[in-house]
């Protein structure tokens, strides 16, 4: 009993200090997750809720649009994350050891799109790509290429969205990589130089392994961000043509806010949560192990 009292006395201050944060964490993160899981098993009206077990999940798996959304989301995650990590590594490794002013300029240039709202970016792209009166269509027609509709074509709509999202987000990854690469001990590069390693060998054998924890971090935040991709879909394609660009988040939004199917929307949310968990846990474990 005395030992227990001592333990409480010793640690109570620490627990009290983290208590406010824990309350916020429990109220705004844990509770919504548990409530989402509960709601996914109910049919909800404005006036009442009715327990329906796994019916919402069954109706989801019977809906071809849900599978389209799932597939599109996976495609977006894979391509956007690979493009972001690859391009950011390329840019960062090319400039990190250059003149400080030049590095700042590159960082600033790539970071500006990150600061611009996704809504604004989507509207600009929409203006450019509108098939009836957009700038790209206008020039294409002027040059005798006829009219083409990149957003209305099943095969081009996904690459366009991937490019727009990648171009808007890549600045963040470049900033993180440059910061991580500047922090790599200089003696490693000097040793490599003495050993006669070329630039590619330096990048492959020293830089990439040294910034692996940054790579994991960038991958995780991008996976989570892309899983939630929504604004660009809503403003650029509305999920079209014929649901070709619908994503899980857009599907969830439609169910929750347009159709008022809160149970179905919660079921989509739970599935997204599980996917995020499955994708993130191995990478988080690798960071923890490395530390």
């Amino acid at each position, binding site marked *: 009993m005395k030992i227990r009292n001592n333990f409480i*006395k010793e640690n*109570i*201050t620490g627990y*009290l*200090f983290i*208590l*406010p944060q824990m*309350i916020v964490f429990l109220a705004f993160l844990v509770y919504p997750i548990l409530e989402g899981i509960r709601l996914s098993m109910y*049919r909800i*009206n*404005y*006036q009442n809720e009715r327990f329906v077990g796994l019916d919402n999940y069954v109706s989801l798996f019977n809906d071809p649009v849900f599978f389209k959304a799932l597939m599109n989301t996976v495609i977006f995650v894979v391509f956007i994350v690979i493009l972001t990590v690859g391009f950011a590594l390329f840019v960062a490794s090319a400039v990190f050891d250059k003149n400080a002013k030049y590095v700042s300029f590159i960082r600033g240039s790539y970071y500006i799109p990150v600061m611009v709202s996704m809504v604004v970016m989507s509207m600009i792209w929409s203006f450019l*790509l*509108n*098939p*009836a*009166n957009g700038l790209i*269509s*206008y020039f294409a*027609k002027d040059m005798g290429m006829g*009219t083409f*509709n990149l*957003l*209305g*074509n*099943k095969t081009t709509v996904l690459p366009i969205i991937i490019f727009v999202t990648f171009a808007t987000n890549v600045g963040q990854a470049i900033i993180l990589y440059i910061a991580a690469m500047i922090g790599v001990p200089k003696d490693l590069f000097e040793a490599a130089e003495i050993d006669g390693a070329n630039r590619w060998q330096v990048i492959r054998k020293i830089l990439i392994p040294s910034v692996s924890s940054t790579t994991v971090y960038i991958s995780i935040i991008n996976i989570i961000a892309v899983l939630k991709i929504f604004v660009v879909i809503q403003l650029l*394609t*509305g*999920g*079209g*043509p*014929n*649901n070709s660009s619908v994503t899980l988040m857009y599907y969830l939004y*439609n169910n*929750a*806010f*347009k*159709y*008022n199917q*809160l149970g179905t929307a919660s079921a989509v949310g739970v599935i997204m949560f599980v996917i995020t968990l499955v994708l993130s846990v191995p990478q988080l474990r690798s960071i923890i192990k490395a530390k």
Partner: protein
Amino acid sequence: MKRKRLLATVAALALMISVISGCSGSGDKSSTADSSDKNKVNITVWLTPQWKGVLDASEKGADYDSFFKYAAQKFKAQYKKYDANVKVEVIAADQRDQLLNVNLSGGTPPDIFFESIFPMGDYVHRGAMVPIDDIIDEKAKSDIAQSYWDASTFGGKTYFYPFEHNPGTLVYNADMFKAAGLEKYVGKENEIKTWSLDEYQEILDGLKNDLPKDKYSNAYPMGLFALNNQGDTWNLAYLRMFGNKFFDDQGNVILNDQNGAKAAAWLKKIYDGGYTNPGAESVSSNDTNAMFQNQQLAISFTNPVLFNNSKISMKDGKSPKFDIRLANIPSESGDPLAFTYVVGASVFQSGDAKRVEVAKDFVKFFSSDPELVKSSKNGIPVRSSVVKQFEGTNPLFAAYDADSKYMFNFTGSVPGYSQLREVLYPALQALYTGEESPEEVVEDYQKNANRVIGENKKNSIIFNP
């Protein structure tokens, strides 16, 4: 050491208490304010953009909320039951369902919503609204035609107080018609011209082939759109062109027949034939409206509000001036396809009896006050007394009236109409992109639409009283 720990513990407790008290502080404050003045009742009116100004858009500083702000002032001045405050908020039409669903789920719906009835019927089916039969008197019933009350009635109870209506028609650029040598198809200034389907094809041919390119570069005969659900009633009308009735008596979609497939094939034919703007699958009704105003389209869609706004924009020099006139949507039978959006106020169930009472009183006030109902002239008034007052100055009222016998109920009053709208434009996108044939489109659409209707019937308080 002990003292240090004590200080730290106190600091942590203080921090925690300040967080907790910070959270609860605002709640205490508001409840005090509520209890201090029991006769004060605050209600909120939401509306989607309808018309600018109190009486019309020519007033100085005219905006979409001008009418309700003025009506609220007038109401407050004469209202004796409570000290009523009316807050007016204009909501973008494409944000309506999102905002309403979020606020209804959070228990904070608006008290009154002023909007076309067609997208609001879902909220009646879901039990979010209160019937307003108790505020409708005999005088109103005799002044407003039965068809408008029918559109406002669900399961035998009235949920909307009709104010005006907005018939949907086509609008055309008469100057472009004349430039293409199509003078004989131009109607009179105050006429809603009816063309047969063959005549319409001749018009499209003339506009496509004979429009002078130097004067109208980058212009197309007709506007077509399927990006989202905005303006989809015109698309629904086109699908009825060859005689399909769209709904059966049980409220199920019956588009999948020969006439439905023929209509879908007609849309595909004019799209592929270059008679419409390109990229209809990615173009919104707003885009085509803008293109029409910029004289890039010769024929587009309109309703009286859009039509008046276009005329005012031209008069004020905000958009290019040209001769705009109205036409009906043609059909194979020769009878025009006509529909109207009945616009009116509805009262949401806030759970607060006082607020519901004030909301109903306010709805009755602005929907029947002789001065305020004059504003319904911005659309087409539902009150025959107002039509009589203005038919001399607005000859189009008679033309719209002549169309009333061709009106069809485009919603079928089915539950889940909002969700039903979300399956139409993907089907049209599949049609325009060639992903599906016209036959496949109507078949898939009917299957998806009836699934939506079936699901929503389960939750409807009208179908499950």
